[in-house]
């Protein structure tokens, strides 16, 4: 990897170079009851909107790469026949300015499924290949357990990655385009002092993680505790509302629905992101529901993320961003659930 340094006040130059594109970044949405700032990824229209110092966003990046509703194909119905149109939407390159390591790791995990050799998804792949990603280092929040998931740092899946050294940015460069763009800035090689400052900052960041999950032997423990009564306890709390999956950067399950226009001459097939916690997720034709109770649905969500995916890809389908726990009104968090399975006790 190539490392460079540029002065802090040149960040706006970098923004200006990219501002002609669809540019998405973290921006302030409001404050909660306790005065805590709430952020969202959205289109940025001026440099002042871009908040690289954001804590984390309430929703993940998913609406830009795997939207909650997406038209897969449209149909023209004429003379008793039909014609199919597919628009992969590949003509809209996007710049993502300010993704934390967890979110880039989330994309890398989705890639394994959605751009993999078995069932590549052209809609996702089209967007993914048209992304220019600028990562940025974060400050750990009380709900972040990425360190436990091994996703607190990121090695690939971005074009450049920024770390604020105070008055200058330390930048890791991973693509030729990123390098070309940076040559328009007064970049220099990092000095020995820059190296030391970078390592210092990383040590400081590492010391700030307060939330963790013990993942050791987790696939085995989950196998052993399939019938554990703790799942029933969590099931009682679960609202089966799907909020956890909605905000999750790696949940990709969906259903497909057909819509016929009012004039009966056009129709569309739409993908709608779904959640395995929703009551009819495992309902099949004829009305049988394989997971009619919230406990078994919640359990399967954990088994998919921390056991099934782990076995298939040797990593969990979770980046430890903690958004699900923040979004859950019932207060169900990944660290609490996994801890309860290990200890066979659900916190009150």
């Amino acid at each position, binding site marked *: 990897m190539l490392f460079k340094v540029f002065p802090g006040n040149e960040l706006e130059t970098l923004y200006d170079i990219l501002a002609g594109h669809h540019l998405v970044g973290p921006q302030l949405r409001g404050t*909660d009851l306790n005065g805590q700032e709430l952020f969202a990824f959205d289109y940025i229209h001026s440099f002042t909107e871009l908040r690289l110092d954001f804590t984390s966003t309430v929703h993940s990046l998913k609406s830009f790469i795997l939207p909650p509703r997406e038209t897969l194909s449209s149909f023209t119905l004429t003379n008793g026949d039909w014609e199919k149109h597919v628009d992969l939407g590949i003509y809209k390159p996007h710049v993502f300015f300010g993704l934390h390591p967890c979110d880039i790791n989330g994309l890398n995990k989705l890639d394994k499924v959605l751009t993999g050799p078995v069932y590549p998804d052209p809609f996702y792949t089209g967007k993914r290949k048209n992304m220019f990603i600028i990562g940025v280092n974060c400050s750990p929040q009380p709900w972040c357990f990425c360190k436990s998931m091994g996703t607190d740092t990121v090695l690939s899946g971005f074009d450049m990655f920024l770390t604020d050294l105070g008055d200058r940015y330390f930048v890791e460069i991973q693509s030729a385009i990123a390098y070309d763009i940076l040559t328009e800035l007064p970049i220099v090689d990092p000095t020995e002092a820059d190296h030391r400052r970078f390592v210092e900052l990383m040590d400081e960041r590492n010391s700030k993680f307060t939330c963790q999950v013990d993942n050791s032997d987790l696939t085995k423990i989950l196998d052993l505790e399939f019938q554990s009564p703790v799942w029933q306890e969590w099931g*009682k709390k679960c609202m*089966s509302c799907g909020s956890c999956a909605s905000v999750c950067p790696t949940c990709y399950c969906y259903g497909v629905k057909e819509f016929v*226009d*009012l004039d*009966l001459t056009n129709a569309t097939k739409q993908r709608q992101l779904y959640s395995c916690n929703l009551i009819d997720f495992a309902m099949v034709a004829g009305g049988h529901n394989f997971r009619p109770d*919230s406990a078994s649905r919640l359990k399967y969500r954990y088994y998919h993320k921390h056991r099934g995916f782990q076995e298939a890809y040797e990593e969990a389908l979770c980046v430890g961003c903690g958004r699900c726990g923040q979004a859950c009104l*019932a207060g169900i968090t990944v660290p609490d659930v996994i801890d309860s399975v290990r200890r066979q006790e659900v916190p009150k």
Partner: protein
Amino acid sequence: MEKTRTYLGVEIKRPRTAFFELSSCEGCQLQILNKEASLFAFLDLLDIVNFREAMSNGSNDYEIAFVEGSVTRADEEERLLKIRKQAKTLVALGSCACFGGVNQLKNRFNDLEWVKKEVYGDFPIETQKVRPLSDFVTVDLSIYGCPIKKEEVEEIVTNLVLGKSIDHPRYPVCMECTANGNICLFKLGEPCLGPVTRAGCDAWCPNNRVGCWGCRGPADEANFDQLQEIMDSHNIPRQAMLDRLECFGGFSSAIKNMSE
């Protein structure tokens, strides 16, 4: 001459359709006439033969009857039975027809004579306890909401005309609310019935920063025990939650279980 319409080579008939109202504000029927951009295409799907709010000269020869409103008088009960007899498909249109709606708030007073006196003074009208259509007749299809959402009605009517199945979402509003990228209203201190209310409205109220009042009634197997805990942990008084649950009548059986 009307030209025949086809869908994938199959002839599609415009069903003879009537709209009726019992006790209601007729706002749901007004919704049927809203969304002008697609109104002609919508009206083209149906052969509307009776619609007091939109046309004169009604006919009583129809296949589909949309009935708005709840039953609060004996003559309404009689009318409803007559509609049921004629209609092949009876659709409960809006929360009043489905659950009693806002009207059923009067049911919480034990002394209905007092209610009558308060409302009508010296001009009393014969009224009874408010009840939904399903208390009297078989309802083939329910369209929830106060008011109904026209986009949803368009989809339902299209499927009805094409003979496709009509499935309401079984999950709560939160799924649509989070899909829209909203920030949870509980985070902002506002009570919301989104976690227990049937989706399908595309989180209409939360999208506009108004907490859900549950006009569409409960989602399948809504978790009311946990709703209480959520309200408690957000310091929202029990009464504020009950006021919302009681408002449209969809949660009456849930409230009964709560007080037990």
